[in-house]
């Protein structure tokens, strides 16, 4: 499996979807920073960078993750390179876990890159961050289980569908629907409702929009994401079971 991982990571670093994703996420944050900056009445007195500005991109990270996972893993089907791994003798579990670990790593990296760069830019535009390094790290770490749940979900979809274009279509549609539902509930009244953490985007939106809507600190409102952890485990198990039993086919772009 180490060989598989090595190959997969090399492909990850060379893939255009991994390289472009951080920029797509940062654009969202920069738009928000621009709005904050334009709203300033006195540009000599900078208000400081709130936490939600650094994490605002989590509003679209669901869609970006959906597209990233579908593109990256879907290419294995459209190029038929998945055959190379299985014919060579690697177990399906090893192949699946390689895909999962690579996507988890990729998502974590571009999430961190977007957050980090935004913090630096926001520091210049809006002033010193209003959060500590501890709060930043805690928020980042608390958002990871949710991202992992999202990755495992879209990976399972891609494995089942076995077609890059269709996987993107289905995953993107799901992510938009999840986002709409989550944004509806993100009105401050529902923050204590832990069951809503089942909606991954709800948890992320709490992080993204909390400063605008609640008066207490962000971290107190971010309960430990138990349900996203459960979802991550569930989708990983489902994905593994399906992948071990499904007939793998080569699906060049035209086939559905």
């Amino acid at each position: 499996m180490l060989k598989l991982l090595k190959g997969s990571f090399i492909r990850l670093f060379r893939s255009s979807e991994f390289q472009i994703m951080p920029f797509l996420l940062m654009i969202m944050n920069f738009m928000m920073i621009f709005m904050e900056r334009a709203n300033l009445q006195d540009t000599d007195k900078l208000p400081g960078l709130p936490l939600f500005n650094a994490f605002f991109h989590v509003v679209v990270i669901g869609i970006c993750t959906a597209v990233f996972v579908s593109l990256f893993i879907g290419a294995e089907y459209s190029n038929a390179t998945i055959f190379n791994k299985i014919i060579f003798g690697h177990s399906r579990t090893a192949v699946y876990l390689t895909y999962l670990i690579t996507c988890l790593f990729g998502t974590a990296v571009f999430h961190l890159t977007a957050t980090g760069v935004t913090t630096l830019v926001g520091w210049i535009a809006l002033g010193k961050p209003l959060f500590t390094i501890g709060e930043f790290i805690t928020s980042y770490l608390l958002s990871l289980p949710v991202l992992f749940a999202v990755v495992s979900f879209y990976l399972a979809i891609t494995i089942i569908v076995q077609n890059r274009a269709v996987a993107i279509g289905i995953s993107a549609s799901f992510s938009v629907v999840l986002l709409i539902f989550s944004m509806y509930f993100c009105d401050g009244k529902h923050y204590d409702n832990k069951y809503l953490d089942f909606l991954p985007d709800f948890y992320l939106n709490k992080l993204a929009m909390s400063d605008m809507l609640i008066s207490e600190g962000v971290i107190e409102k971010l309960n430990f994401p138990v349900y996203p952890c459960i979802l991550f485990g569930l989708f990983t198990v489902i994905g593994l079971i399906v992948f071990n039993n499904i007939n793998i086919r080569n699906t060049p772009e035209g086939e559905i």
Partner: protein
Amino acid sequence: MSRLLSANLRRLKINIPFYIYSFLIFAISILFTSKLYILMFGEYLPVEDAIMIASALPAGFNALFIGFFLGREYSDKTIRNKIVVGFTKSEIYGASLITTSLVTTLWVILWFVGCISGATIAGAEYSMESLIVKAFVVLFFNLAFSSGLTAVSMMVHSRVLCIVLHTQVPPYLITFALINGSLIGTEGAFPPVIKEIMTFVVNLMPMGQWFFTSVDYGEVLYPNPVLMLLSVGVIVLFTAVGIRYFKEKEIK
């Protein structure tokens, strides 16, 4: 071009996702305006605003549908059959544009009928005259949006890339419209000239028109006839750019 159009329409006729999306647009429109919008936004929201919020449905489904429908011509390489037998690229583009426009028009009609039905079921009060005028604005900005999607699909030559662009770009454009719209309403946020330019840009964008007809930002939006005219301008622009690049792009 009529032959190309009849071939496209035949392909549409046997396209199952087209029927599924049509059904979903109609069903969601009814559900949203009869019950769902009250659950989501509370009873203070006028039903006409709820109807306008739902007017994004045709655009949302178009983002997926057009990418798959037109993108298939490249993934299956069937676009070659049309060029080999002598159709010009302008004719092929024109047929594709007319097909997507017909689909958009049908879906806008389904949205309108669905929303009116839902509002009537819920017993909500609305002004039919005002809604009909807004429906035309909705039709035009949806056509403008679908002409943009068509241009992207015809220029990009890859089904996967089409779908990625169609699903990734609109949320950013909506956020851009929202941010600029709110800044336009904020005193001192923009210098006067920039404010005028940004107001024009927000009104030009189909997403901008959708957002500000749904949410009452009275200062931002131009009058309805101007909005329709701007949408026509967007259609002409996208079509001109799309045809130009499609003609130059080589087909493998």
